[in-house]
């Protein structure tokens, strides 16, 4: 999960910007800290060699310098921020080898559902992707807000009910990574960690074929069962019945997931869904 050990181009660019920004700032922060400690020590009351200058209260030259140093730093970093924001826009394409893989992620209370519409399969709490290929994510939430984040692949993005966010990533090396939700979403939140299996592009079709043999089918009915609040200990896989399931969720044709099943005498809102 180390941010400084990126496994894809987006994470690599994120962490490069992180390290460069820190380096730029350290160049003025370290001398400033040294000066603070140095001045404080030298001008201590008991030091007879320090010259007391009670009238040194203004100096145009010093003022110019003290406004310029942070201003120049910010101009430099502002450039980094502007260029970086555009290059690393989560929706920007991340070209890779082979054909891109479309993945539709849905955050549920409290598990992750990954739908592969083109392969007509779906998985829960485990994400399997081919190395080197562009990964096009569409994300939404069945209920509350969450953040989809695989630290070693880079940029995170919110999932929200009734909305679709976009994120493009690429995993360069085969292996096992971990992902998580980075926005608190209720009692089962810490159990929203998921496995990321990066496998070779050759092995990917085999994995798809094996998964498609699953007995379990994901359709509106089984999805509604899945979206009940609870923690998923296993790693179920599904055949996907209707490739438009994600759209039905994102457009609220399938209503948002329920909250805790606690009797409440308060007026209950809801029931109306955009159709």
């Amino acid at each position, binding site marked *: *999960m180390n941010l*400084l050990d990126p496994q894809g181009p987006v994470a690599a660019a994120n962490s490069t910007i992180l390290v460069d*920004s820190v380096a730029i700032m350290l160049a003025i*922060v370290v001398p400033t800290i040294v000066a603070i400690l140095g001045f404080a020590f030298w001008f201590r009351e008991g030091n007879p060699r320090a010259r007391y200058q009670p009238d040194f209260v203004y100096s145009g030259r010093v003022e110019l310098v003290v406004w310029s140093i942070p201003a120049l730093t910010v101009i430099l970093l*502002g450039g980094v921020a502007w260029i970086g924001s555009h290059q690393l826009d989560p929706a920007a394409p991340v070209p890779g080898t082979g054909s891109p893989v479309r993945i539709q992620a849905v955050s549920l209370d409290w598990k992750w559902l990954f739908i592969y519409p083109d392969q007509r399969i779906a998985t829960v709490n485990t994400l399997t992707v081919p190395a080197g290929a562009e990964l096009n994510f569409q994300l939404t939430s069945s*209920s509350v807000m969450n953040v989809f984040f695989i630290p070693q692949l880079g940029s995170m993005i919110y999932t929200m009910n009734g909305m679709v966010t976009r994120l493009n990533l690429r995993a360069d090396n085969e292996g096992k990574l971990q992902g998580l939700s980075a926005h608190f979403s209720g009692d089962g939140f810490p159990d929203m960690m998921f496995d990321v299996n990066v496998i070779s592009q050759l092995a990917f079709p085999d994995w798809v074929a094996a998964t498609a043999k699953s007995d379990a089918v994901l359709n509106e009915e089984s999805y509604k069962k899945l979206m009940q609040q609870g923690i998923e200990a296993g790693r179920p896989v599904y055949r996907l019945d209707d490739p438009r399931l994600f759209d039905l969720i994102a457009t609220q044709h399938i*209503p948002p997931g329920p909250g805790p099943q606690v009797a409440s005498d308060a007026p209950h809102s809801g029931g109306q*869904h955009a159709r």
Partner: protein
Amino acid sequence: MLGKLTWSAIPFDQPIPLVAGGVVIVALLAVLIWVVVKGHLPYLWREWITSVDHKRIGVMYVLLASVMFLRGGSDAILMRIQQAIAYQSQGYLPPEHYNQIFSAHGTIMIFFVAMPFVIGLMNLVVPLQLGVRDVAFPTLNSVGFWLTATGALLVNLSLVIGEFARTGWLAFPPLSGLVYSPGVGVDYYAWSLQISGVGTLVAGINLVTTVLKLRTRGMNYLRMPMFCWTTLASSLLMVAAFPILTATLAMLLLDRYLGFHFFTNEAGGNVMIFMNLIWAWGHPEVYILVLPAFGIFSEVVSTFSGKPLFGYRSMVLATMAICVISFMVWLHHFFTMGAGPDVNAIFGIASMIIAIPTGVKIYNWLFTMYGGRIRFTTPMLWSVGFMVTFIIGGLTGVLVAVPPADFILHNSMFLVAHFHNVIIGGVLFGAFAGFTYWFPKAFGFRLDERWGKAAFWCTFIGFYVTFIPLYAAGMLGMTRRMQHYDVAVWRPWMIVAVIGMAILTMAVVCQVVQLVVSIRNRESLRDRTGDPWDGRSLEWATSSPPPVFNFAISPDVRGEDAYWEMKAKARQQQFAHAQPEYQDIEMPRNSPTGFVCAFFASIMGFALIWHIWWMVILGLIGAWATFVVFAWRDHDEYVIPAADVARIDRANIEERRNLVSLAGSV
């Protein structure tokens, strides 16, 4: 009859909150009984509860903040222990309890520790620094304090009756909506903030008016001490930002109580609007807290370096720049919500721009020390510790303002470490510096230096031992608010952080011991001169503690560092004091309005939380009637005769003359 309130609201099955609540109730009852039996109640009622004296109200604010600091700190200890042991296990706190604790910790530390602490110091000091006798609206000031106390009371009540929010300190919908949080927790959160928010708003209005309209002769804007400037900036932000919070929470409450759809998933509600609104208040809020701290450091560094503040005008400009720009950066709290690259970049750069005036402030304090004669008292230690720590917090802050970096740091432990870095290193260090610096002014004796320095070093070291590991955990991908985890590499850092927490706990113990030791040795620590630190601004020109009217004769200010110049002049003129002509002084009468109003507001808040509608009406009418009675008052001032003023002031002058002659003979 009692709405949703039943016996099941009291968590008989959860020993921790029940025991904690029980201890607090027993302690409160014990104090109350002691007060009544000893016959202190009339004194407390007359001199404190109904007092409209800005100094007394300031002290009560700080007292409230200190008590709530112990509560919020206990929450922090519970969380750090949980995360240290909850590796591949559930730890000792189940999610429903842990989630309440971190929500309460954030809410309490911001709204009921940091806010009352800085407002208390501003209340205590600003009228004195401006050379005036009280704030602009003394009774309103008391109302503001007591409403803040009401909010604190409701938050603490949630410990034993019902539950607190489990949604985090900003209660993001839809999680905080009725569907996903059907309990009373979010209602406790929202109503306590609504009520205390009114208190904060009136405090802001009061302070803005005081600074703008009530300055003594000759105290023009560019002669005001820096703390008055930062108070002005911070209070302007309160007036501008708190209504946003009130409106946002009102919408959330409409969703929860009346089936509205501002922030629900259904019927076109939009959660992103809540995010934008809450941070449009939330980001100015952090500057509301830190600007007064900047003011405190300016006073402290200047006083203990024996020099005027370097680049005063530059500091004023920087302060007001921060005040304005702080409203233009809120989006950096959710770069990862999918706004376009242009929006992200612009808000990122705007956020960095705040670092410019902040950096200028650091350099100006640095050059205030240059050529000074620095006395390392406790407040000065807090200030130097602040400068070093705050720069590091500023560095990580600018780092998360770079959108691509934030894309991997958002909501992580790195972020948690960053904002504790600036809030502890900035606001808390500032509050403690101000507390030690102005304590003798408020109570007439200094605090013990040895215990004060011990507290500083424990806090300083404890801070780094606690929060450097959190930075590290964030770099390892750890996100915040995890009740348990299975990632082995996070564990060692959580264990180190718990050790840091132990050091921070020792720091709090040192603070308490410092207070006890100082009270016990108050005779030897007595400040008879009113000027224990060789101060520069007008609060040191009167006795410690000041008389109720602050100044017998309104001071006439001739420049920056008003009192420093008066002292220099007095030395030159060989103390040839003309006998001043004393006059009668009119002071505002005490008023129970604030206390009574808050009493009814507490009833109303509690009733709203539990849907006890008849009680809501009772509370509302009671609070309103209190104001009507106050508005129809006939006498709101009383007169202190000139003879009394003269007697009090001559005693003060006598002490002061001794000080000046001693200093002059060196």
